[in-house]
C-alpha cells in the first residue's frame, strides 16, 4: 500500500469544520474512527483536524481544513505536495473543563466598538465542539470581528487533544488586534546588541516597570520617568539599541525623524507632530509603546539661536507634547543625538528627558564583545580570534566593525568565486578589510596621515635612542597596569631634538608602525587659520579624536614653529596654541561627553578591582595619549612645556657616527647595482656636511645639560 498521500486543497464545504478527508485505507492504517482528532505535521506547521472519510472514498489523497494550526498566520499552501502517512498521528480525545485563549480582533476600532460580552459569546461559539491543543491558533473565517484565537492553556492538560464541550468554561486572557499580532511576529530576526548592557538594562527598566508593576507605581504616587536621551558619536549603536530593547520588551516602536516632520505649509510640522503623538498614544493604550526620535538636534535646536520662527514653533510644540497640559500619554520617549549641546536646554530637564546616557566609543572589552557577536553568525576559520582583532581595531565603533566584517565576507566570497575554495573567512580576509575600512572617528579631517611603514631595522644605529623611545612610548601604551603596579607615573610626552636631517621623523614613523596605535600628526599648516580661535579649536579637536581612539600618538612636528615661548613678545596665536596644548597635556578632569566604560584590569592574584583602583585605571585610560614632538631648536621652547609631567622625556638624536653611516648604506637596498667603495669615497669628497662644528657643540652642550638634569 502506498504510504504517500497527495495533498489537495480543501473543499469549500469543509471550511470552518476542522475536518480532514482521508481515504478508508489511511484511516484504518491510523486506527482512527470518524470524528477523532489527528495531528498532521507539514513543513509549514502542524494542523489539528478531525478524521473523516472522503466522500468519494478514494485512497491516496488528503484534504485538510487549516482551522486549527500552529502557524499563527496560516497562508493557504495548496501546493500539490505529497504527505507521508507517518506524518499523521492519532490523538486521544480529552473533554476539557476549562480553556484559556487570547483573542485577536480585526482592528482597534472594532475592539473598542464590540463589548466584551459579545466577544465572549463569539469565542464560545467558535470553540464549541472543536478540538484544541495548547499554542495552536484557531482561525475564524468570514467577516466576524474575531480574526483568530490563540489557545494559551487547557485544563486538564493531558496528552491528547482537548475537546471543548458545552460544559467547558472559556476564559479570555487577553484581547489584542491583528496589527499587534502581526507586529510581534514580524520581528523574527533578533538583533543582538553587545557591549552596552548597562544602558540596555536602564532602558528596559524604563519600559517594563510601569507595565508590570502599575500598582506599585500608583502607590508611590509618582509616575515613572519616561524620557531618555542617548548621546554619543555616530555609529556607536544608539538606534540599534532602541530597536533591540523594544523587540525584547514586546513594545511597539514608533519612530520620528526630523526631516519627515517638516512640511511646506506653515503649521504642518506641528500638525505632523501632534498626529504622531496621538497615534503613539492610541497604540500605548493596548500595549507598551516606545516613541523614538532620531537626530533630535535637527528637530529641536536652541530657541533664539536663529530667528527662525517656524523652527521655534516646532520646538515649542514638542515641549508641550512631552510635558504639557494635554500630555497624558503612557509611552516611553527615547531620543538620540550626536550633539547634545545644540539641543534646547528646556528639553533636558526632568519631566522631559529625565535620563541622559552617554554611549562612548567602545573600549577593548566592548569591541571584543561586539566582534564576537558579529562573527558568531559568519563561517570563520578557527585562527580568527576576536581578541586579536579587537586589539587591532583601535578607535573603531560598532558601525565600523560591522563594515569590517562585511568587507571581510565580501573578500571571502570574491576569493571563493575565483578559486573555488570553500568560502570560509580567514584572518587574511579580515586584515584586508581592516586596511580598507578606516574608523569613522578618524575619517573627519585633521591629523590623518598615511605613510609607508618603517621597521626599526631600517634605521641604522641610534640603538640607545631606539631603546629609550620604546621604553617611553610603547610600554606605557601597552602595559599601563605594570606601571601602576610599580607606582610609576606614566610619561606623557617625548621631545626629540637634534640637528636637522637626523631621522627624528623616521624614528617616530617607526614607533607608530611598531605599536598598533592611532597616529595623528599635526603641522603648522593644519593649525594656523585666518579666523581667530580656529587654531585652538583644531588643536582641541585633534586631542579629542586622540582621546576617543586611545591608545594614540599625537606627533607635533617642528613644534618650535607652532609654539613660541611666552617670554617673547610672541604673536598672539602662538601663545594661545601653547596654552591649549598645556591644558590638554595636563588639564583638569575628563569631559563628560567623552566618557567611556572603564577597562577592568585584574591585578595579580586575581583580586577584584575596588573603587580607587577603578578610578585610577580610568585616569590611565584618559592618559593613554602620548605626545611626541620633534624640533631643531629646543632652546626656543617654553619652559612650562618641558617640565616633567608634560614633555618630560628629552631625547637627543645625534648625527650619525661612522658605524651608523655604514649600516644605513647597507640597508638602503642598493644590492641590484653593485656600488663600489670608490664611488662612495668620491661622493663623500664632493658632499659637504650640513652641520658646522659650532652647531654640533651647541647640541652637545644641550644634551649634556639634559643628561645631567
Amino acid at each position, binding site marked *: 500500500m502506498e504510504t504517500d498521500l497527495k495533498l489537495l486543497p480543501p473543499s469549500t464545504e469543509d471550511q470552518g469544520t476542522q475536518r480532514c478527508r482521508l481515504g*478508508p485505507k489511511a484511516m484504518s492504517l491510523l486506527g482512527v474512527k470518524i470524528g477523532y482528532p489527528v495531528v498532521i505535521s507539514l513543513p509549514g506547521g502542524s494542523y489539528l483536524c478531525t478524521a473523516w*472519510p472522503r466522500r468519494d472514498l478514494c485512497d491516496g489523497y488528503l484534504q485538510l481544513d487549516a482551522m486549527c494550526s500552529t502557524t499563527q498566520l496560516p497562508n493557504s499552501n495548496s501546493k500539490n505536495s505529497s504527505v507521508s502517512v507517518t506524518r499523521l498521528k492519532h490523538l486521544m480525545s480529552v473533554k476539557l473543563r476549562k480553556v484559556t485563549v487570547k483573542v485577536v480582533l480585526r482592528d482597534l476600532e472594532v475592539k473598542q466598538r464590540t463589548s466584551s460580552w459579545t466577544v465572549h459569546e463569539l469565542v464560545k461559539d467558535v470553540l464549541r465542539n472543536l478540538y484544541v491543543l495548547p499554542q495552536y491558533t484557531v482561525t475564524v473565517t468570514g467577516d466576524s470581528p474575531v480574526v483568530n484565537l490563540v489557545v494559551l492553556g487547557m485544563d486538564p492538560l493531558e496528552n491528547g487533544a482537548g475537546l471543548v464541550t458545552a460544559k467547558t468554561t472559556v476564559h479570555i486572557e487577553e484581547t489584542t488586534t491583528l496589527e499587534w499580532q502581526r507586529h510581534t511576529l514580524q520581528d523574527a530576526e533578533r538583533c543582538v546588541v553587545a557591549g552596552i548592557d548597562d544602558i540596555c538594562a536602564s532602558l528596559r527598566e524604563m519600559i517594563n516597570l510601569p507595565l508590570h508593576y502599575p500598582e506599585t507605581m500608583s502607590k508611590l504616587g509618582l509616575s515613572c520617568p519616561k524620557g531618555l536621551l542617548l548621546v554619543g558619536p555616530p555609529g556607536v549603536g544608539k538606534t540599534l539599541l532602541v530597536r533591540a530593547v523594544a523587540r525584547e520588551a514586546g513594545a511597539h516602536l514608533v519612530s520620528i525623524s526630523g526631516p519627515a516632520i517638516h512640511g511646506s505649509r506653515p503649521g504642518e510640522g506641528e500638525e505632523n507632530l501632534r498626529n504622531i503623538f496621538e497615534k503613539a498614544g492610541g497604540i500605548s493604550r493596548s500595549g507598551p509603546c516606545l516613541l523614538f526620535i532620531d537626530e533630535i538636534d535637527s528637530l529641536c535646536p536652541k530657541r533664539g539661536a536663529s530667528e527662525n520662527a517656524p523652527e521655534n514653533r516646532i520646538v515649542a510644540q514638542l515641549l508641550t507634547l512631552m510635558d504639557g497640559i494635554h500630555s497624558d500619554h503612557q509611552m516611553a520617549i527615547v531620543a538620540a543625538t550626536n550633539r547634545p549641546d545644540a539641543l534646547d536646554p528646556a528639553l533636558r530637564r526632568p519631566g522631559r528627558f529625565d535620563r541622559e546616557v552617554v554611549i562612548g566609543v567602545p573600549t577593548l572589552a566592548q569591541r571584543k564583545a561586539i566582534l564576537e557577536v558579529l562573527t558568531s553568525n559568519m563561517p570563520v576559520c578557527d585562527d580568527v580570534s576576536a581578541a586579536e582583532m579587537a586589539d587591532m581595531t583601535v578607535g573603531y565603533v560598532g558601525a565600523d566593525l560591522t563594515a569590517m566584517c562585511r568587507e571581510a565576507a565580501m573578500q571571502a566570497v570574491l576569493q571563493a568565486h575565483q578559486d573555488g575554495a570553500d568560502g570560509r573567512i580567514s584572518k587574511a580576509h579580515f586584515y584586508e578589510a581592516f586596511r580598507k575600512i578606516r574608523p569613522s572617528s578618524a575619517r573627519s579631517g585633521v591629523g590623518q596621515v598615511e605613510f609607508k611603514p618603517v621597521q626599526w631595522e631600517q634605521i641604522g644605529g641610534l640603538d640607545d635612542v631606539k631603546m629609550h623611545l620604546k621604553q617611553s612610548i610603547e610600554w606605557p601604551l601597552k602595559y599601563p597596569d605594570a606601571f601602576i603596579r610599580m607606582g610609576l607615573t606614566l610619561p606623557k610626552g617625548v621631545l626629540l631634538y637634534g640637528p636637522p636631517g637626523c631621522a627624528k621623523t623616521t624614528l617616530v614613523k617607526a614607533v607608530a608602525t611598531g605599536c598598533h596605535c592611532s597616529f595623528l600628526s599635526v603641522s603648522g599648516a593644519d593649525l594656523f587659520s585666518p579666523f581667530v580661535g580656529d587654531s585652538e579649536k583644531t588643536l582641541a579637536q585633534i586631542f579629542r579624536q586622540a582621546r576617543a581612539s586611545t591608545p594614540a600618538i599625537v606627533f607635533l612636528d617642528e613644534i618650535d614653529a607652532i609654539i613660541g615661548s611666552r617670554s617673547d613678545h610672541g604673536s598672539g596665536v602662538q601663545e594661545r596654541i601653547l596654552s591649549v596644548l598645556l591644558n590638554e597635556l595636563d588639564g583638569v578632569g575628563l569631559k563628560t561627553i567623552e566618557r567611556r566604560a572603564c577597562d577592568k584590569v585584574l591585578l595579580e592574584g586575581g583580586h577584584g578591582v575596588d573603587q580607587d583602583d577603578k578610578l585610577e585605571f580610568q585616569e590611565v585610560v584618559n592618559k593613554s595619549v602620548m605626545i611626541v614632538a620633534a624640533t631643531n631648536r629646543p632652546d626656543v621652547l617654553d619652559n612650562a612645556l618641558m617640565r616633567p609631567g608634560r614633555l618630560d622625556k628629552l631625547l637627543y638624536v645625534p648625527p650619525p657616527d661612522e658605524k651608523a653611516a655604514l649600516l644605513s648604506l647597507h640597508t638602503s637596498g642598493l644590492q641590484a647595482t653593485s656600488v663600489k667603495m670608490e664611488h662612495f669615497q668620491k661622493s663623500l669628497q664632493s658632499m659637504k656636511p650640513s652641520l658646522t662644528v659650532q652647531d654640533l657643540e651647541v647640541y652637545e652642550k644641550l644634551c649634556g645639560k639634559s643628561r645631567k638634569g
Partner: protein
Amino acid sequence: MSEKVSSGSLVQSLRRCFDVLEQQQKEWKFAIQECDPLVTTLSNLSDQLQACQKVNLQNGPLSEFPDLQDRLQYKLKAAMEVTLEKLNDKLSILQKVRDAVSLLVGSVFYVYEVNADNIGLEGSLSRTAHSPSIADMLEWLQDIEKHYRNQYLVRKLLLQVRYDQLSEIKNLPQHWNRLDDKSSSKQLVEGIIFNFFLNFIF
C-alpha cells in the same frame, strides 16, 4: 452478530434523530417567519423616531401642543420596546430549537462512539442505493447543528440594538433577510436530507 446489533441501534437512533430534526426545522422556520413582520415594524418605528428627532415643531402649526416632541418620542420608544420584547420571545424559541438539536446530535455521536468498534470502519462507510452511509449521516448532523448554532448567535447579536444607532435599526430587515439568503446552501442541504429521508427504507 454484535455488529448487526450495534449498527442496528445506531441506525435507529439516527432515524429518531432525523425525525425530531424535521420537527425542529419546522418550528425554526415558523419562528423566523413570525419574526419578519416584527423586524419590519421595528425598522419603521426607528425611522419614525429618527424623523421625530430631526423635526423642528416649533415653527409650524403644531407648536401649540405642549411637549409634543417629547411625547411622540416616548410613545415611539415604548412601541419599539414592545416589538423588541416580542422578538426576544421568538429568539427564545430559536434557542430552544438550537439546544434540542445540540442535545440530539450529541446523543447520536455518543451512541456512535460506544458502538464504533463493533461496527468497524467498513460498516460506517458502506453506502447502498437506498441509504447513505453512517459517516455521511454523521457529517450532515454535525453541519446542521453548527448551522443552527451560528444562525441563532448571529440573529441574537443583530438584535442587540441601541437607541443611538437608529440608522442600524433601519437596515435591520435587510440584514435579517440576508441571513436567510446566505444560508441558502445550508437550507438546500437540509432540504435534500429530508427529501432523502422520506424515501428511505431502513
